[in-house]
């Protein structure tokens, strides 16, 4: 029997088909759809209000004025969209693993990680995306950053970079469930950490700055990548390196996730 090739196109095609079906059913639960959309808007609004109150009292934070902070905020919201939309099933991983249900993802001739993640597409992320883009454009105009193809290209590359870091963090946090029982806490803590992404990493002192840069790379979820756009004349080396680091972190988290799958012994029937 000839071997079947499953390349990038195959996976993109399958993902699209699953997504279309999934959206179709989601639309059919109108109440659920509307309520969760409203919920997401409320969450974003409350985050935004907190932000405004903060700035009423402190006009600048560590040399960052209102619009620069707003830019960072919008940047982090957009960067967090992919993890919300495409990798949300990480939150369910531990339930599938403890119940033994996870085994069903291992019986298909496709990548287990892909197959697992493809099952859930979280629409709520789209509201966040719209909100983030709005904030970003608003701040962009007020700061007066020139709009050139190069800047736009940079923006896209570094937004993707920032997303990779957040995805990597959530993958790694979720994969701990293959080894420990109460992995829910690890995920919640990681998810809480993302709140720090909204602030310039320079406000954190030595230990935390190191922690958020190298151990739990939250600073890469907005701060370092956004510097490329915000301060094009004064970009730190870490910012330029962030796309590479992002790919590396994502790859490592993926390997860690898959190692968990292999180590997990599927006990119980």
């Amino acid at each position, binding site marked *: *029997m000839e*071997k*079947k090739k*499953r390349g990038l196109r*195959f996976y993109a*095609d*399958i993902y699209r*088909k*699953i997504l279309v*079906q*999934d959206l179709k*059913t989601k639309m059919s639960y109108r109440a659920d759809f509307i309520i969760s959309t409203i919920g997401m808007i409320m969450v974003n609004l409350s985050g935004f209000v907190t932000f405004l109150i903060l700035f009423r009292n402190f006009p600048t934070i560590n040399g960052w004025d209102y619009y620069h902070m707003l830019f960072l905020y919008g940047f982090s919201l957009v960067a967090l969209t992919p993890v919300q939309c495409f990798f949300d099933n990480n939150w369910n991983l531990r339930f599938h693993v403890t119940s033994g*249900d996870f*085994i*069903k993802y*291992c*019986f*298909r*001739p*496709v*990548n287990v990680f892909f197959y697992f993640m493809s*099952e859930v597409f979280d629409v709520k992320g789209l509201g966040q995306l719209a909100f983030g883009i709005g904030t970003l454009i608003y701040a962009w105009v007020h700061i007066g950053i020139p709009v050139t193809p190069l800047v736009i290209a940079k923006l896209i590359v570094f937004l993707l970079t920032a997303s990779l870091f957040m995805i990597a963090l959530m993958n790694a946090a979720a994969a701990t469930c293959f080894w420990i029982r109460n992995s829910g806490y690890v995920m919640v803590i990681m998810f809480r950490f993302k709140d720090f992404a909204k602030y310039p990493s320079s406000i954190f002192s030595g230990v935390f700055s190191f922690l958020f840069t190298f151990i739990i790379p939250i600073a890469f979820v907005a701060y370092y990548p956004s510097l490329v756009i915000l301060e094009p004349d004064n970009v730190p080396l870490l910012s330029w390196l962030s796309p590479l680091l992002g790919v590396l972190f994502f790859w490592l988290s993926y390997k860690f996730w898959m190692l968990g799958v292999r180590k997990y*012994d*599927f*006990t*119980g*029937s």
Partner: protein
Amino acid sequence: MEDQALVMKNVCKDFKVLNRHEGLKGSIQDLFSRDYKTISAVKDVSLEVARGEIIGYLGPNGAGKSTTIKMMTGVLEPTSGEILVNGKVPYKNRTENCENIGVVFGQRSQLWWSLPLIESFKLLRDLYMVPEKQYEDMIELYRSLVDIEPIINKPVRQMSLGQRTLSDILAAFIHNPAIVFLDEPTIGLDVSMKDKIRALIKGLNKEKNTTVILTTHDMGDVDALCRRIVIIDKGTKIYDNDIEHLKGYFGSYRTLHMKLADDTWEQMLIDEKTTDVMQVITEKQKVTKIKDIRLEEISTEEVIKKIYEGEAV
């Protein structure tokens, strides 16, 4: 080797389990403990299954059935020994192996929960890259074997357990795999649904010459589907032959049914070599009135029970 769908040679599987200590002090100890004990779940099992065969893979709970199935499907790696599924080592080529197997777990649906069945079928067709013609033919075959109209447009979430099991079995055959593993496919189903499911499995096996490995606790499944059974207990294979052959060993056994004065039926298993049936009846009559008597050959269920209970084969 070519006509064997599955070959296992001296397969063993050990699990390492932490020796847990009692109490709070023990729990803290466990955090740092490297004190593992090894548990052998499967010990030196060899097995050959020919193409198109349906075998009943039986054993009491915890005997090592699921572990074996997980090794056959490539999810677990054996500690030692060799497994070949369709001539390939399953855990080394998991995705390739999956191309050629179908798996159904009685109570766990593998279909997309919120999708109508037909959409699940189409997604599976794409996942397995099944040619359009082959897919159409398979759906045609399904139509001829069971009435799929009531379920084809129904989301899996809204199905009854029976419909879901039926759907899962159909889904497992959609890519025309060489081997299908069925783990307790009739668990929790009513009598008529059980019959339907059995007929479907039999039909698919006949039409497609698919090898079926069936684990079950329901001897009705075995009687309806399998000629050959393999029994494992405590990780060791203790029986591998035809059911008829097995019954032969217990040929002198009879099940005696007696209807007593209060209209209840009492059942006894009697070995005619050692006990006289008439004697038993006479004894019973001294205590109570017997209204009716039926004498039957030993059932598969009784045979299996005897084996589980440790009677030598």
